[in-house]
């Protein structure tokens, strides 16, 4: 009874295959890597893009939602943008191509292209399993990016701003960051649009935190209203490591940001603060999977979503606690302001617990603005529009207070306010 007919290819699937055929000779790498890329595309041809029947893509049916893909070539040139983080060290990735590896005290940096050309890279370009469409697309197409390493004990003084700027076409980039023992840094991974053409991006960030490393990583995705953004962040945390991740989505037409964290070392801590501001016709999905596999680890996630217009938001969060991970404390909250009848929000917070001496909890709410709050503000002479902005801002803004860098927090807060100004 298990006969599955091979699905016919959708225009988007065909588009990806065509793009691969057109680009394959230009993709950096040795013969082994080319063969690896071929295998991944063959797999894509075989299985197609994931549909809602694949549990991990239940709410983001990529097969249906991705109607078409742009050709591989960009529409125009992209320039580096002024940094949004004050005094930042910028590493631009323009149309998926590196500019110049920068260096700072304690930080070494090479282009990914160099690594790919050096050979033996196929090992590192692996999807995270059969259903990992983003990992598959990125591994097959990736051309460039940055490979960074921060010395033990080093503290990177400036904020490092990874700037992926794109104008149309396709870009497939990758950032690898190794934080050696007890190093500290704040990194802003920024995805922006230049020009007028719709583009497709896949972006994979691979973070390795050694013992007691302490990273603050911010993903700011502010692409155009017709762009497709497929992002993935993988992180491994060794003993005593600490990763504070901020995800801010304010743009894009079809966005999926995956966060896959392995809390592997005793006493390691992960937290996530995500702000999803959704308007227009966009579909934005944040999918999170956290594995606790060592004792005394902690994680805490707070996701706040604002849905306007006809936008649709998705949050999937899975916390897994292995048998060995006793004394784990994992908390997850997903709160949504669903402000229109045409909008939609779907949440699937999941707990998968195999250890008994743990404290794990998740909570999810979907609500509208409280009329009593609105009345209180308007009774003080604040117009309804401003009152709504104030309340929505109050709902998301406090997550940014948790950024240690106040200047950066202020910049990001202003971006949230600007967004509210434009959309509420």
């Amino acid at each position: 009874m298990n006969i599955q007919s091979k699905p016919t290819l959708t225009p988007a699937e065909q588009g990806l295959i065509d793009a691969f055929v057109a680009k394959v000779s230009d993709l950096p790498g040795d013969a082994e890597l080319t063969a690896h890329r071929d295998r991944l595309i063959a797999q894509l041809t075989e299985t197609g893009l994931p549909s809602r029947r694949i549990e991990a893509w239940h709410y983001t049916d990529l097969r249906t939602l991705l109607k078409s893909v742009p050709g591989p070539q960009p529409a125009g040139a992209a320039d580096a943008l002024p940094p949004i983080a004050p005094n930042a060290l910028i590493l631009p990735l323009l149309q998926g191509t590196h500019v110049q590896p920068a260096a700072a005290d304690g930080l070494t940096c090479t282009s990914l292209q160099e690594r790919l050309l050096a050979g033996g890279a196929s090992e590192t370009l692996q999807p995270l399993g059969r259903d990992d469409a983003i990992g598959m697309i990125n591994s097959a197409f990736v051309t460039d990016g940055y490979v960074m390493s921060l010395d033990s004990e080093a503290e990177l003084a400036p904020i490092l701003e990874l700037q992926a700027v794109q104008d149309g076409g396709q870009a497939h980039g990758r950032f690898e960051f190794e934080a050696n023992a007890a190093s500290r840094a704040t990194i802003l991974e920024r995805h922006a649009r230049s020009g007028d053409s719709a583009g497709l991006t896949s972006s994979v960030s691979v973070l390795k935190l050694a013992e007691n490393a302490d990273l603050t990583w911010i993903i700011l995705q502010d692409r155009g209203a017709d762009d497709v953004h497929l992002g993935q962040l993988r992180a491994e945390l060794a003993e005593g490591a600490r990763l504070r991740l901020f995800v801010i989505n304010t743009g894009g037409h079809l966005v999926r940001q995956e966060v896959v964290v392995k809390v592997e070392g005793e006493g390691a801590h992960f937290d996530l603060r995500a702000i999803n501001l959704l308007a227009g016709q966009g579909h934005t999905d944040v999918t999170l999977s956290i594995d606790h596999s060592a004792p005394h680890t902690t994680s805490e996630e707070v996701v706040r979503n604002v849905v306007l217009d006809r936008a649709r938001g998705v949050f999937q969060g899975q916390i897994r606690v292995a048998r060995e991970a006793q004394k784990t404390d994992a908390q997850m909250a997903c709160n949504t302001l669903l402000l229109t009848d045409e909008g939609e929000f779907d949440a699937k917070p999941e707990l998968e617990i195999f250890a008994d001496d743990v404290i794990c909890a998740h909570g999810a709410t979907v609500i509208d603005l409280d009329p009593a709050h609105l009345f209180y503000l308007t009774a003080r002479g604040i117009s309804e529009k401003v009152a709504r902005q104030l309340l929505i801002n109050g709902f998301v803004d406090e997550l940014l207070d948790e950024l240690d860098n106040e200047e950066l927090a202020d910049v990001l807060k202003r971006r949230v306010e600007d967004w509210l100004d434009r959309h509420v």
Partner: protein
Amino acid sequence: MPAVQETIDQVRQIDVDQYKYGFETIIETDKAPKGLSEDIIRFISAKKQEPEWMLEWRLAAYRRWLTMEEPSWARVDYPQIDFQDLYYYSAPKTAAGPKTLDEVDPELLATYEKLGIPLREQEMLAGVQQSKIAVDAVFDSVSVVTTFKEELKKAGVIFMSISEALREHPELVRKYIGSVVPTSDNFYATLNSAVFTDGSFVYVPKGVRCPMELSTYFRINDQNTGQFERTLIICEEGAYVSYLEGCTAPQRDENQLHAAVVELVALDDAEIKYSTVQNWYPGDKEGKGGIYNFVTKRGDCRGRNSKISWTQVETGSAITWKYPSCILRGDNSRGEFYSIAVSNGHQQIDSGTKMLHLGKNTSSRIISKGISAGQSNNTYRGQVSAHRKAANARNFTQCDSLLIGDRCGAHTVPYIEAKNASAQFEHEATTSKISDDQLFYCLARGIPEEEAIALIVNGFVKDVIQQLPMEFAVEAQKLIGISLEGSVG
């Protein structure tokens, strides 16, 4: 609280064998040949003297089923079932429509007595201050007897086996069967539609408050026999019924299949309260044997201000796949789901509910308490969704899991889907173990560990137990204590 004391006593009395309903009844049975085909379906339908349309309905379901795949999304793992290696019809030989209890095989009556289900009305009445409960007893594939029929008839309530109902009230059955769970709904429900052998039928007419609790008691006895019962409950405008369901099976090394369908229909201002204590044989300590329980239960709040409430205590079965759901179609309708799921040994439970908000001002409430022990896996899976037009839909979900020991798993998988601004959903879930402080407190008061756990667990599940009718509440508490026997130390 006396019930707690009883649980403790019960736990104390427990011997090695934890499953006290594991005995077998030796009785002559009338069986269809093994396997599944259109002929078998014709055989079942003929045995039951069903109208022609019913046979056609079954056959259509069967043809549909042949094209379907067994679902794989649930967190349960079991070897593939050979659907041709089962008997689809098994009836006690003497059971062909006994008119009175005296015609019922004494072996059967003895079986139900042993299970603690008195079928003789006078015995029930003799019970000290026990409230009246009408019972429909289903043994393997058929209903053997239904009690208190006459008294119910006076109130206008129809309570009989569904086979009887198909003969006596075909128009009612035809109108409602498959209207909540369509024949194409899912693999197991479709299979059930093709081969169901018996079950209960309840019809409460307009404005009638059913004068007593109704109850069905299911017993799988025969080897290699699939039990496929079908229950249909209809509450007309302003009617009310409280319905109880209990189940047991003998201890056997091989797995037995149970795939039931329950459909509830509540019209304007009607209320249905459906309570289950499920204690099918869970398999032995090594995970051998036990019932595969694949059940589709759904209630349709079809009318305005209607209400459907599911309460379940799940302690048995090797595998449970069950999501009693509510379709909140009528404006102002309300759905409730209260659940206790206890897994021990090698049991696997994937259970929860769906609350589908379609009408305006609909509300739902979900309280789920999962307790995992031994090497079991216990998953709560629940969906709450508000349709675009379901203005002011409200849901509150509280979902707590308790782990006892470090070889079991507790999982929570909610699906929360909101499609309009006025919907308000609130979901909370926690997973924890029995707190050391609580345990120590009890131990320091001289309460042995096992009893202390029973006490604490009783506290953990109290919110759900309170939803059960009194007689069931006591029974359920005992059962939870027994199920957790041997989970510590």
